[in-house]
């Protein structure tokens, strides 16, 4: 991060307009020197920005309530990348996939570009003056009956809700509903009741045992980024790490990270919690939950033994409130819940029952004017709640939505809000810490910040709520030290202080129990998709294309059922089944998943929006259509209580999945070690001993001494001299550490002492450029990796990777390969880094299986199979250890990919980067996000992970400008920077001062397919397993052949 400046440049917008087709849309199609191009200068040169050099603005992510700090990289007036803010107390430099994808909300082609007003039944563009006048008049009318006005606001902490409510109060209207579809309002209500805070910080590291009752704290349940950081830190503590048991009907991403899974009947979690609290016996719990007694007894004893233990529970079930309260009660005694540094952003969220009640009022005609801001209740409220019909009854509906959705489609007036990256604000991150939000660029379209609109309107309607012209000056006026203080604080992105949140506890409407839970021998489980949440992400191609961490499905909605259930129904993957509930029925393709109970069918929420919600959002089908509307005691909607019938349907559609085989077939790609084996020796990946010795967590002495012998042979570095004599020998035990600290091996004798310097060229370690003295390398710690896939989206953002799943991008050459994800059904996804999810054990479909996530990317082999086969030198080995792909030299023989054992090379089957084409992946203005430092690949060339070579070059350039060398850990690659579990480390392995140089010699280090002699630069650290008394699944590495 070179410079962090606070003040957004002047008139960058004009610059953008004219230079929109400039270097950022750089594509390698031909040599464009013939085309007449215009060079448009700034009118007034913006201070503090240098053309071609990035400026970094600290701001706040508003994609969820956690209020993570972000740093927006801005180049020539465009925000091109978001990173986590390292100084921020919440996310400490990490950023999840949703946060990364905020950029595609900013540049979304389906945003409203001007205010819209409904004339003659359809929405028309209009001017702000016109729109504001209409709004003012309507408000004036509405004020005669202020009771008939309702405002639904997207929940956000900070000063805005206060402003909004005082604005409403000024006109005698009721305070706004503050809705966050992703927040677990049941848990929040319980937390407020137990701890007095909405969302405490869970201190995973201090615990010995974590038990989660459906609480998916890694995939969107609460503050998932900091929770993931804490969890990964805790689990990386080797022998001191807590064991993790997941209880629930479906094994979510969080569940897959658990050591054990107890598949309890949906809604029966409470019984088990009561057992733990001693209120009931294992027998009773087993009775209720359908889990065998032995397992529950083991759980009880382990829980009793483990001090402190942390019990987490999520709402959504029929008795969610009771469950959460009971779980909190169990924690009350342990010190594992930290109230002091609670996440304050979750305060003041209203449960969905308020919207339902409002719907009933609208149905009765009691509402004359409805205002909605960035919430999509028409999509969120299940059909069975009848909200859409009720809303149609409202005479005048105003939407402040910045992007098309089902609700704004019904609106009479649309006053598009700025995106959060275009507007001012602040968020309450943690106690007494404000996370500041500033515009990172001028508005892309003709939109206005809602706060400024309210202020303006309040003046015209004669009820001024503040003297300030806009929200920024309001912030300054509130800020200690005024403008100067704010300017000083902005670069850090945080400041001390807090903003009074309006009390979220409005009178809770009487909850409605399930009118008709329906019947049928299945329970329908609707869960928020880890990537798309409750649907806000559906219009962002990055998130649609991101394979679900668990099912690996993209662009598609599937019905997840257990393989045994599928056999009973006589269906296989992709065959359609009809899921029918009292609320409705859907015909969905089947995905068989053994991490789910046999009597449960699970459907991910978030997809299947109406056509009006934009070109990407309509992929898949809408799970809410199946939900019978019901609320628990906290007023939150029940997601897991609907009964469903599942019957076979005729059709079949190919699953849009990136999954090939979910089993490793003993190939040792994802290796693991039992915690007991850590220290002293590393487990023998190749030998049967390990497989037997593993579960006991002990290592046979003979094995130990062999390992030690190897170590001795290996010498300190575990480098060349220690390399096995017969690398292909399957019985050989490989050694940790990077095989080739420099590129020597790849270049044969070129680097060796034998050859003359002029023959060595830049491969000469003595060459002035010193390139051959470097070895860019990476370690990936599988004990930390949770499979959340944030790295994937970060890579898309950094490297201009096209999304290929939109229905107009597919190859229309086979009838069954069209529609959304058509390219992906042909495995043509382009993600340079992918999360491979391998199951170990449980081949019988049982619950006892282990999951290993492996981020797989170009291994930058020191001895790369792809290099010698390329006929035109388009891929070759750079002296600094990079396996380089020269796009403009590539002719597209694809031989390199055939010869790549890791299959990490991706081919441009279509002109994804060419605006003229149907398959264009960056429709205006998505292309504004393209990274100018990275070539947009053209049709017919191969591409792959470059180790972010553009960042390496930038660091080198910066160092050269400052007349110094590149400092250790001075920069890192996009995936490592984003990773919310800090699993990825990048650096120069040939320089001992870099962190990676130490990590490659870790006792858990191994290379994938080392027996192929590829000398990879990516070193994996084995996963660490914590088997329990009941764990039967294989916990050591599979046999490597």
């Amino acid at each position, binding site marked *: 991060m070179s410079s962090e400046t606070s003040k957004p440049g002047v008139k960058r917008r004009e610059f953008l307009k004219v230079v929109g087709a400039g270097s950022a849309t750089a594509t390698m199609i031909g040599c464009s020197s013939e085309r007449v191009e215009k060079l448009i200068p700034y009118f007034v040169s913006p201070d503090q920005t240098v053309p071609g050099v990035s400026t970094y603005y600290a701001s706040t992510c508003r994609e969820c309530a956690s209020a993570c700090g972000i740093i927006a990289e801005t180049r020539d007036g465009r925000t091109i990348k978001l990173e986590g803010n390292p100084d921020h107390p919440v996310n400490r430099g990490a950023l999840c996939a949703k946060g990364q994808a905020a950029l595609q909300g900013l540049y979304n082609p389906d945003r409203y570009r001007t205010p819209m007003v409904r004339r003659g039944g359809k929405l028309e563009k209009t001017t702000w003056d016109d729109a504001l006048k209409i709004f003012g008049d309507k408000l004036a009318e509405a004020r005669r009956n202020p009771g008939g006005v309702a405002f639904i606001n997207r929940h956000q902490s900070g000063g805005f809700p206060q402003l909004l409510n005082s604005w409403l109060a000024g006109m005698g209207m009721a305070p706004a509903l503050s809705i966050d579809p992703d927040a677990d309002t049941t848990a929040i209500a319980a937390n407020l009741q137990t701890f007095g805070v909405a969302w405490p910080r869970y201190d995973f590291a201090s615990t010995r045992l974590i038990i989660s009752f459906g609480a998916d704290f890694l995939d969107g349940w609460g503050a998932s980024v900091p929770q993931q950081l804490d969890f990964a830190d805790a689990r990386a503590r080797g022998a001191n790490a807590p064991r993790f048991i997941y209880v629930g009907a479906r094994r979510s991403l969080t569940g897959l990270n658990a050591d054990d899974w107890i598949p309890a009947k949906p809604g029966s979690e409470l019984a088990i919690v009561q057992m733990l609290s001693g209120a009931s016996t294992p027998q009773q719990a087993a009775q209720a939950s359908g889990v065998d007694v032995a397992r529950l007894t083991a759980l009880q004893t382990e829980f009793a033994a483990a001090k402190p233990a942390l019990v987490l529970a999520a709402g959504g079930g029929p008795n969610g409130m009771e469950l959460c309260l009971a779980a909190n009660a169990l924690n009350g005694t342990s010190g594992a819940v930290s109230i002091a540094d609670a996440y304050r952003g979750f305060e003041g969220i209203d449960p969905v029952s308020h919207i339902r009640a409002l719907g009933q009022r609208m149905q009765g005609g009691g509402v004359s004017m409805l205002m909605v801001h960035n919430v999509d209740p028409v999509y969120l409220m299940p059909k069975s709640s009848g909200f859409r019909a009720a809303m149609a009854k409202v005479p005048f509906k105003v939407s402040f939505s910045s992007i098309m959705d089902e609700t704004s489609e019904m609106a009479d007036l649309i006053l598009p809000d700025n995106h959060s990256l275009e507007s001012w604000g602040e968020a309450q991150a943690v106690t007494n810490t404000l996370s500041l939000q500033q515009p990172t660029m001028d508005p892309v379209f003709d939109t206005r910040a809602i706060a400024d609109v309210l202020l303006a309107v309040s003046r015209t309607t004669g009820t001024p709520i503040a003297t300030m012209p806009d929200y920024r000056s309001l912030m300054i006026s509130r800020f200690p030290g005024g403008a100067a203080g704010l300017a000083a604080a902005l670069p850090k992105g945080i400041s001390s202080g807090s903003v009074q949140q309006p009390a979220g506890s409005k009178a809770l409407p009487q909850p409605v129990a399930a009118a008709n839970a329906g019947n049928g021998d299945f329970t329908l489980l609707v869960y928020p998709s880890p990537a798309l949440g409750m649907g806000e992400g559906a219009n962002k191609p990055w998130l649609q294309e991101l394979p679900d961490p668990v099912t690996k499905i993209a662009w598609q909605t599937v019905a997840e059922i257990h393989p045994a259930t599928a056999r009973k129904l006589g269906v296989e993957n992709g065959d359609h089944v009809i899921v029918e509930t009292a609320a409705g029925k859907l015909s969905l393709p089947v995905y068989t998943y053994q991490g789910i109970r046999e009597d449960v069918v699970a459907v991910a929420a978030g997809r299947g929006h109406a056509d009006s919600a934009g070109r990407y959002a309509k992929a898949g089908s809408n799970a809410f259509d199946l939900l019978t509307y019901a609320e628990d005691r906290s007023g939150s909607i029940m997601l897991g209580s609907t009964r469903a019938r599942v019957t076979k349907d005729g059709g079949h559609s190919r699953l849009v999945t990136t999954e090939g085989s979910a089993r490793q077939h003993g*190939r040792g790609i994802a290796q693991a070690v039992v915690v007991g084996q850590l220290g002293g020796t590393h487990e023998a990946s190749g030998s049967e001993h390990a497989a037997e010795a593993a579960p006991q967590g002990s290592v046979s002495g003979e094995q130990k001494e062999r390992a030690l012998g190897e170590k001795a042979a290996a010498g300190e570095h575990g480098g060349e001299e220690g390399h096995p004599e017969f690398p292909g020998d399957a019985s050989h035990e490989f050694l940790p550490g990077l095989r080739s600290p420099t590129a020597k091996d790849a270049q044969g004798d070129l680097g060796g002492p034998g050859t003359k310097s002029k023959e060595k060229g830049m491969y000469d370690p003595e060459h002035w450029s010193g390139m051959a003295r470097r070895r860019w390398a990476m370690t990936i710690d599988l004990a930390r990796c949770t499979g959340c896939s944030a790295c994937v989206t970060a890579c898309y953002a950094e490297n201009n990777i096209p999304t290929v799943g939109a229905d107009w991008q597919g190859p229309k050459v086979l009838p069954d390969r069209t529609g959304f994800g058509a390219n992906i059904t042909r495995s043509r996804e382009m993600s340079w880094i992918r999360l491979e999810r391998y199951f170990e054990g449980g081949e019988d479909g049982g619950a006892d299986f282990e999951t290993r996530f492996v981020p797989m990317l170009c291994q930058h082999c020191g001895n790369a199979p792809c290099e010698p086969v390329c006929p035109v*030198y388009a891929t070759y080995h750079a002296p600094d250890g990079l396996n380089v792909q020269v796009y403009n030299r590539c002719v597209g023989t694809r031989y390199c990919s055939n010869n790549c054992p890791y299959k990490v090379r991706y081919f441009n089957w279509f002109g994804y980067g060419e605006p003229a084409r149907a398959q264009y992946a960056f429709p205006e203005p998505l292309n504004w996000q393209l990274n100018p430092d990275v070539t947009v690949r053209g049709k017919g060339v191969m591409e792959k992970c470059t180790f972010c070579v553009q960042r390496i070059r930038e660091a080198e350039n910066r160092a050269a400008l400052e007349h110094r060398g590149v400092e250790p850990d001075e920069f890192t690659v996009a995936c490592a920077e984003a990773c919310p579990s800090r699993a990825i480390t990048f650096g120069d392995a040939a320089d001992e001062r870099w962190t990676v140089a130490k990590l490659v010699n870790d006792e858990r280090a191994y290379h994938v397919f080392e027996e192929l002699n590829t000398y990879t630069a990516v070193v994996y650290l084995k996963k660490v397993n914590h088997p329990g008394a009941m764990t039967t699944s294989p916990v050591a590495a599979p046999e490597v052949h």
Partner: protein
Amino acid sequence: MATMARPSRVKDEPRRPNIASADIQLPAVRDYEQVDREISATLHPTVAWFIGLGVAILFLIIGAAAWMYQIYTGLGVAGYNPPVMWGVYIITFVFWVGIGHAGTLISAILYLFRAGFRTTIYRCAEAMTVFAVMTAGLFPILHLGRPWKFFWLIPYPNWRYIWPQFKSPLVWDVFAILTYLTVSSTFLYIGLIPDIATLRDREKNPVRRRIFGVLSLGWRNSDREWRHFARAYLFLAAFSTPLVLSVHSVVSFDFAMALTPGWHTTIFPPYFVAGAIFSGIGMVFTIIIPLRKWFGLKHYVTINHLDAAAKLCLFTSLVVGCAYMTEWFVAWFSGNEFEKNFFANRIWGQWWWASAILYTCNMVLPLTLFKQSWRRNPTWLFILSFFINLGMWFERFVIVVPSLSHEFEPWQWAGYSPTWVDFAILAGSFGWFSMWFLLFIKQLPVIAISEVKEIVPPKLRQTHDHGIDSAGRHLEFEPSTPGEAD
């Protein structure tokens, strides 16, 4: 030139004709004049020929259109399904290169071995070689992501200090194919010179006469020309013989040099060469059997010749079958899990049907040729040749697709299904090949006039209504050739 064996009386049944000596006999050909007349008679276009040519060109147009569509839209319109990055195009490339080999084998190697039965079929086979290589040469370009940059594979001086990667088998391919095309077309042309001269002398049309004149390089049938011709022909035969082995070995390196399971084997070069010759002979049957029927050349391409070629076919089939079994054995014997797993998948996995076609067509069906009556039955040979072509195409399919779809990384295992674009271009390649061949057979003699003359008795002063053997003894005129049913 070649010494003639004693003619065997076909009439006396008890004595089976000794194929080895009888195969070079053309009892039904009486004199040179008849040879000139009958063979040059085949050059007159017929309606059927025009129809055939039209169909061929239609297929070519379809293929060309599909290719243009693919170039414009991108390779995605073809059936590629990563990790299967090579598909129908590479399969068809290897297929056509293979076809070529039989031609050179028959015309060059068998010439050196003095195998007389080649005399009447080698011209067809040689032409087939040239056109097959012309067809094969298209595919490496056709399957490129950016075909307009194909010339980067050719080493040419440039001021960017960039050369091709000479370690890459694909560059070796470029050299192999170009060499093969040059040598085989030269060989074909040299062999044609005396025949073109013959045509020139018989030609009435002044323009064609002029063209033939140029092409015959002013051949005057002098002893000196014949002496030099024989030398040059012998030399070229010797020169192209190693190519039969080298070219397809190089092609096999495209696979053998990769570490993909199923590709990374040392037996590929001999295995590919045998397969190539096998497929080539299959194609020779496909072409020559209809030709001899339509052109009424049964008494030139006698059943004995077919019989001998069938033996060669049988032999190569056995070699290929042996190679298949060696592959299985090595996969099992190596103890390499990747290999074992791969071969299990090849035979019992998702591609079992492809393997089944391959093994049936290439190993099982040719065994029928052990029986002489089948060998001497042109109808059966014709049908069998189709199975052989099919089987050899699927051999390449089984080598390319299952290997790639089932590699080291289980997460990336996938399937493959070609699209209409693949098939259109495949059909186009047959159209392209057929077009050239059809044009050839109506412009130039499909049977080497000069060489046939070498094995018919010297011409006497006046023509007789019956044949005369080398010793000048009178033979009964035999309208049909011995041993043939129809």
